[in-house]
């Protein structure tokens, strides 16, 4: 990545010259979730302040309240945020409700090409209607749900021997979802160094999006589809397909047989806590946290390693990440667009990656040194090749809340069967799309 660092210095100097003529210094507010990459962005943005003369303020909201807080802000036409790094699922509502500025003309005028960014991220974070060349955001933070594990435990001879004896195969990173479960079950309740440890921490949170993000990490590898024909909203037979039922039963079995007791409402924070406290052998979480995990003095470094969400019938990872948008209610749109232009610069993107942000720029991702730049970089590339996202419809919140309820009722509260849960979900979603006039 050294070449990327050197290149970034020269580009930042050039960018400084171009921003030198900014007519009026503004105080821009950028809104995002409060997490590790946000701190990296604060650091990165100091360069922008120095070059443009604008000052940057930040409004970072804890994840559990992020959607509530920001969507309320947008719906009320609030002027708190000039720039918003909003979740990928908000793009439909952001575009249709006029919350986000359409960026096509700006991109054309400034020579910013979406071809310079990874195709999956442009599709997921920037376009509405999906896949059309109508851009409402610049891909800001690539992300996917991945896995990390206690490498030091996996390498111990006694544990390897016990695993071989129990399963007949070598203990290694899982190649399928079923292998993943098998490993997690092996560690469940096992004594290691005098402590009882558990298999894995997975997402089961009820209030926001947690359990949906966790379950889709099983659904997608089993081949889950939201519609039989894209854009037709015909969900019967797709959402509740036999493969989807099998994947949901798998996730429930995982929850019941391979997770620590009490993890009935866990999401990102709980997953990190379980791993860092040495309770679990493996955990799922977003790649965004991986730099921090690797740097952890107790469970990071040579004690940790990472792997992409394992396939089953196919590759499939749950998409995370966000695009950066200019809020339509901002009085400082020109300065906000300046920030977007600066942020899209390949060398700024290179620095973004080096600070702990996940760039979606091809110049970074395709750099020959990228895969070796971090122990999780190769996995990140692999994951981004097979990502799938939740509905991005304007009614996404209704769709998400319905799924949260059906999944939690089935998996955690143990009510009904997987088929019944998915059938009920199809009914809920059908009602939402009928209300939307799309069915």
């Amino acid at each position, binding site marked *: 990545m050294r070449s990327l660092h050197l290149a970034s210095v020269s580009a930042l100097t050039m960018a400084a010259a171009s921003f030198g003529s900014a007519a009026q210094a503004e105080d821009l507010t950028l809104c995002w979730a409060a997490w590790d990459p946000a701190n990296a962005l604060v650091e990165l943005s100091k360069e922008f302040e120095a070059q443009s003369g604008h000052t940057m303020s930040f409004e970072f909201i804890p994840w559990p309240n992020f959607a509530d807080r920001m969507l309320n802000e947008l719906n009320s036409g609030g002027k708190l945020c000039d720039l918003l790094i909003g979740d990928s699922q908000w793009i439909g509502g952001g575009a249709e*409700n*006029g919350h986000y500025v359409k960026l096509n003309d700006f991109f054309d005028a400034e020579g910013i090409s979406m071809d310079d960014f990874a195709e999956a991220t442009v599709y997921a974070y920037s376009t509405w209607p999906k896949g059309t060349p109508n851009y409402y955001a610049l891909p800001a933070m690539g992300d996917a749900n991945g896995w990390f594990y206690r490498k030091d435990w996996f390498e111990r001879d006694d544990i390897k021997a016990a695993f071989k004896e129990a399963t007949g195969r070598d203990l290694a990173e899982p190649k399928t979802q079923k292998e993943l479960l098998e490993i997690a079950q092996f560690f469940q309740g096992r004594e290691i160094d005098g402590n009882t440890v558990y298999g894995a921490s997975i997402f089961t949170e*009820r209030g926001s999006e947690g359990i949906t993000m966790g379950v889709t990490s099983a659904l997608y590898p089993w081949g889950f589809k939201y519609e039989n024909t894209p854009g037709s909203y015909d969900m019967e037979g797709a959402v509740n397909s036999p493969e989807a039922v099998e994947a949901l039963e798998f996730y429930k079995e995982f929850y019941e047989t391979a997770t620590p*007791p*009490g993890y009935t409402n866990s999401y990102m924070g709980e997953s990190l806590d379980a791993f860092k406290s040495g309770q679990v052998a493996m955990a799922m979480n977003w790649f965004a946290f991986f730099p921090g995990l690797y740097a952890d003095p107790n469970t990071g470094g040579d004690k940790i390693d990472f792997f992409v969400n394992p396939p089953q019938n196919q590759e499939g990872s749950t998409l995370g990440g966000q695009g950066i948008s200019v809020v339509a209610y901002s009085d400082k749109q020109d300065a906000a667009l300046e920030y977007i232009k600066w942020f899209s610069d390949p060398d700024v993107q290179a620095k973004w990656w080096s600070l702990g942000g996940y760039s979606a720029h091809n110049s970074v991702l395709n750099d020959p040194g990228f895969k070796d730049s971090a122990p999780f970089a190769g996995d990140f590339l692999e994951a981004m090749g097979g990502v799938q996202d939740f509905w991005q419809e304007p009614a996404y919140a209704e769709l998400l809340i319905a799924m949260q*309820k059906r999944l*939690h009722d089935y998996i*955690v509260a143990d009510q009904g069967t997987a088929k019944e849960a998915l059938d009920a979900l199809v009914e809920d979603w059908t009602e939402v799309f009928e*209300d939307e006039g799309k069915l």
Partner: protein
Amino acid sequence: MPDTPATRAAQATPASVARKIKGLSDRAIAWIFVGPTIFLLLAINIFPLIWTIQLSFTNFKANRAGREIKNVGLRNYERILTDSDIWLNMQATAHFLFWTIFFQVLIGFTLAYLINKKFKGNDLWTTIIVLPMMLSPAVVGNFWKFLYQPQIGLFNYVVAFFSGKDPSSFEMLGSVQLAPWSIVIVDTWMWTPFVMLICLAGLRSIPDYIYEAAEVDRASKLRQFFTITIPMVLPFLMLAVLFRGIENFKMFDLVVQLTGGGPGSTTELTSINLKREAFEKWRTGYASAYAIILFVTVFGLASIYVKALNKVKER
């Protein structure tokens, strides 16, 4: 001129003000004083209520300002009243309401009865007992979440100590059977002192001479309790039940912190469900109908209850 409050007020009125109101009738002056209050009441309470009723007959969504608003008649009401999930939320709310009030009245009255006895350290114990109700519900929810943690939670260890079970063998917040009771326990812990204070006020309002007369009549302590103490404290108790009933019907923060409505929808009280409909799904018309149904329910029950309370007071 006689020295009455009215004449004293008239003399105290500045001359400039007196000139301005000279010629105004008493009724007009009364309206001047009452007007701002009535205006605020209309603006803050009545107008939003009427608007909510109007919205409840539409498909309005507050986050979709540009969307055509259609009149859907009684469809929102019909959907709510025929939705089995909402009836489950109602059941969860009724369970929470009944058992919290039951335990709070039982324990609150017992504590008040004990505290009312004169003993050393009485004031200190009163202060210690009322501490929980001084805490923020968010704080209480968070620390009880830790207490209920199966691996490190004190609550599980205490139960395990007495029952001989493994502390991590049961999950108060994660079990469908135990979660409804876990929120009842926390609310009871937090709000029993409130009921105790009201009962204590009731007990201290009973004049000693009534007990002295009963002693003269050789009434037993038990007889005194059931024929003097309970009847005279009953209006206070009923008031406490009314306050706690209304408060717990709209319970939100504590339960959200503890369970988030889970596991599944086991502890999803109507207020949590209503918030999801109104401010997460943004189904404003539907949520308005939901709010009206809840309002009518609480208003109706409270009216019946207040009538009963007045009858008890008259006795």
